[in-house]
């Protein structure tokens, strides 16, 4: 910047002092209202300014039933996210402008980033083909986590016989939503690999051919220990390949579930320890993690798909 800015941090000096002073007052008040201030009992703060120790719940609460199936609060949050995304898509795609407005430029830059990721990982043709799936996962995970950070999202309560239940809760803090996403990825990977390579895809897992040939040689009277051993190891490698494919489901699920649940618990605990001002920092951190986790899930999906459709010989170069 050539021009010298007046004041501090882009504000005029009185405004900067006011904002900084306000933040400091809230910080001190937060420290006093937390367990530290209560321990020493220095102030007689009114009870509505302090928080009780939160109790994070692991299973999602069932709000109501439809034909015997329990509808949990995370499922309702999923619907809210879906409706939100459909509305955004409708708003942007109904009348796309050549010079994008605010909403359109956000969505365009997000999708452009994911598109570049797909094309650079899987090549032009496959990248275009699998872009819709990857972008859907990215947008769902991202906006699901971001919507949960909006104030009021988790505080909407539902009175029932079992006490107060939250109506909305971030969908990925329930174990089932990340599992569903991971299963979608897993079955897409296996199906596309099978479709593209035919039975050649199964060859990746069933690698007992060398072992069989070595065993066949024994009956012909040629006992070759090395061929037998290396054939056996090749067979084990095939089994390991299969196990690593299945383990992907678990790792994808727990990565997303753990991050989202940890984020929620961190926010709850920090709001208990220092109720004012400091949770703001963690809200920033959580919105950053939402982007990172969505990006990781989408990137891993396209990487797995591109590995499975390129065939074993071509994929072996990557390892």
């Amino acid at each position, binding site marked *: 910047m050539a021009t010298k800015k007046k004041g501090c941090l882009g504000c005029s000096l009185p405004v900067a002092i006011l904002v900084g002073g306000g933040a400091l007052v809230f910080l001190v008040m937060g420290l006093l209202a937390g367990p530290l201030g209560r321990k020493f009992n220095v102030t007689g703060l009114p009870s509505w300014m302090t928080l009780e120790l939160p109790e*994070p*719940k*692991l299973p999602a609460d069932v709000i109501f039933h439809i034909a015997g199936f329990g509808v949990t609060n995370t499922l309702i949050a999923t619907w809210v996210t879906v409706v939100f995304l459909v509305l955004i898509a409708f708003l942007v795609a109904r009348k796309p402008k050549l010079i994008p407005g605010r909403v359109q430029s956000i969505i365009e830059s997000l999708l452009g980033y994911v598109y570049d990721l797909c094309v650079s990982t899987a090549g032009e043709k496959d990248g275009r083909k699998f872009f819709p799936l990857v972008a859907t996962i990215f947008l769902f995970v991202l906006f699901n986590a971001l919507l949960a950070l909006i104030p009021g999202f988790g505080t909407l309560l539902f009175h029932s016989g079992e006490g107060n239940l939250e109506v909305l809760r971030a969908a990925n803090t329930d174990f089932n939503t990340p599992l569903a996403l991971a299963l979608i990825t897993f079955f897409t990977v296996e199906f596309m690999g099978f479709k593209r390579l035919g039975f050649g895809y199964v060859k990746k897992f069933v690698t007992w051919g060398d072992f069989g040939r070595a065993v066949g040689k024994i009956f012909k009277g040629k006992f070759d220990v090395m061929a037998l051993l290396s054939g056996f190891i090749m067979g084990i490698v095939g089994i390991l390949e299969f196990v690593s494919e299945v383990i992907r489901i678990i*790792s994808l699920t*727990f*990565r997303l*579930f*753990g*991050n989202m*649940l*940890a984020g929620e*618990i961190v926010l709850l605990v920090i709001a208990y320890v220092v109720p004012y001002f400091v949770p703001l920092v963690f809200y920033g951190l959580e919105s950053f993690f939402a982007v*990172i*986790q969505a*990006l*990781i899930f989408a*990137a891993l999906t396209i990487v797995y798909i591109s590995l499975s459709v390129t065939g074993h010989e071509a994929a072996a170069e990557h390892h």
Partner: protein
Amino acid sequence: MDPEAAKLLGAGLAMGLGAIGPGIGLGLIGNAMLNGVARNPEAQGRMFTNMILMAGLTEAVAIYALVIAVLLIFVA
């Protein structure tokens, strides 16, 4: 030992021991990133994106430990 105490002890041990590996991993990632930037400062933007991605993947290992700890406290 009291089962409740064992539960809390297990949760603490799971989280603490589980954070060792990812801590070393994150250090290695930061090391590699700084080495790369020192050698080729122009590529910092692309390196930073990749670093964040790898850091997320590494951090996930600690998150698995956290999930186990949370399960021990709230479910077991």
